[in-house]
């Protein structure tokens, strides 16, 4: 892929992060308006792809952006891209709005130390930076693998439901998900 395109994406990611930091530090409303302008249409698009009406999608956008304002201080640019952070907020707002249930979360404060193998900082950074090329890798996935990813993220379906719907053994759906994830992951290390 062209380096210029990579650079543009990386600059865009930095601009988004700068907006969130400005909100966190000085309750900057202009930064909020800028962030809203860049991301609200995407969140709306994402919700409508998941079957929400325009009005419902706008409601999710509102709730999501208010949460962004309130939780800006908790955003850590070293841990996640802004789009990833906002994805998790929008996901939870949707669940709350449409399924009337919670998405039990894990916060940094919940972490119980020294219970598992640790992941080195290098991997974390790879993970963080990979987002910029990941989009292209998703488009390159074979259709059968892309299909399960899309059904999970856009149609709110568990791998079990996907298997039933595609009339496919559970094992096949599982291996497609695994193949897709490992492919996306290897693209992350290539990016380094």
């Amino acid at each position, binding site marked *: 892929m062209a380096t210029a395109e990579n650079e543009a994406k990386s600059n865009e990611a930095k601009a988004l992060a700068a907006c969130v930091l400005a909100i966190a530090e000085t309750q900057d*409303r202009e930064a909020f*308006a800028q962030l*809203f302008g860049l991301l609200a*249409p*995407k*969140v*709306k*698009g*994402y919700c409508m*792809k998941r079957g929400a009406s325009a009005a419902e*999608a*706008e409601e999710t956008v*509102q709730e999501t*952006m208010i949460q962004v*304002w*309130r*939780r*800006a*201080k*908790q955003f850590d640019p070293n*841990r*996640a*891209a802004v789009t*990833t*952070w906002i*994805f998790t907020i929008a*996901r939870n707002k949707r*669940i709350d709005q449409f*399924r*009337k*249930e*919670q*998405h*039990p979360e*894990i916060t940094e*404060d*919940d*972490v*119980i130390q*020294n*219970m*598992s193998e640790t*992941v080195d900082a290098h991997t974390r950074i790879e*993970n963080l930076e990979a*987002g910029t090329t*990941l*989009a292209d890798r*998703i488009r390159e996935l074979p259709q059968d693998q892309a299909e399960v*990813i*899309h059904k*999970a*993220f856009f149609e*709110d379906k*568990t*791998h079990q*439901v996907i298997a039933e719907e595609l009339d496919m053994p559970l094992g096949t759906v599982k291996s497609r*998900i*695994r193949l897709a*994830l490992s492919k996306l992951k290897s693209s*992350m290390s290539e990016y380094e």
Partner: protein
Amino acid sequence: MMICYHPENELLFDYASGSLEEEPSLVVAAHLAFCDLCREELRSMENLGGVLLADSGDEQMSPNALEAVISRLDSSPDASSDLQLTPSDPILPGPIARYVGSGLDGLRWRRVGLSVKEAVIPTANTKFRTSLLRIQPGTAIPNHTHVGSEYTLVLKGGILDDDRHYRRGDLMFEGEHDEHRPKAAEDEECICLVVLDAPLRFTGFFARLLNPSA
């Protein structure tokens, strides 16, 4: 001590995409509190969500949308009052502690058989039964086969199943038709979080105990 038994990748994937129901999500979230590896897996899956969101294509917002949100900002308290306070508990990880509030001793425990106590945790879907169990050391469950799925997260003590030893932070998943013969470890009381799918037909390790007609 080391986490040995993790959620399958697909379960974590369903949690990341938001398609997994609240009850199994609680088991996954509680495991994540213990497990650095799964948190990192989750991060890369959520990263994928972020990319799909950014790639979704824009839908134009209605003209007064920004104004409407901004007018609500002032009445929105900031995060300090927004975040649910997590009671600190030596046994319960944050995601469970937020459901329970009062800690283990404040719960209403009901006796199930001679050697098990259960406290039900209220959740959104009646399709699932979510409980904390306290099991006497060495309690064995007869050989059985599953009808629904059962998710078990060990919080204290251990569970032995064939050659597997599940300890604090380990997740045991029993799918439909799985057959086995688990038992609580001998050395100390076992406390675990259990989520049963299709509890009306339950026949699993704990389901069998909890089923009133068993």
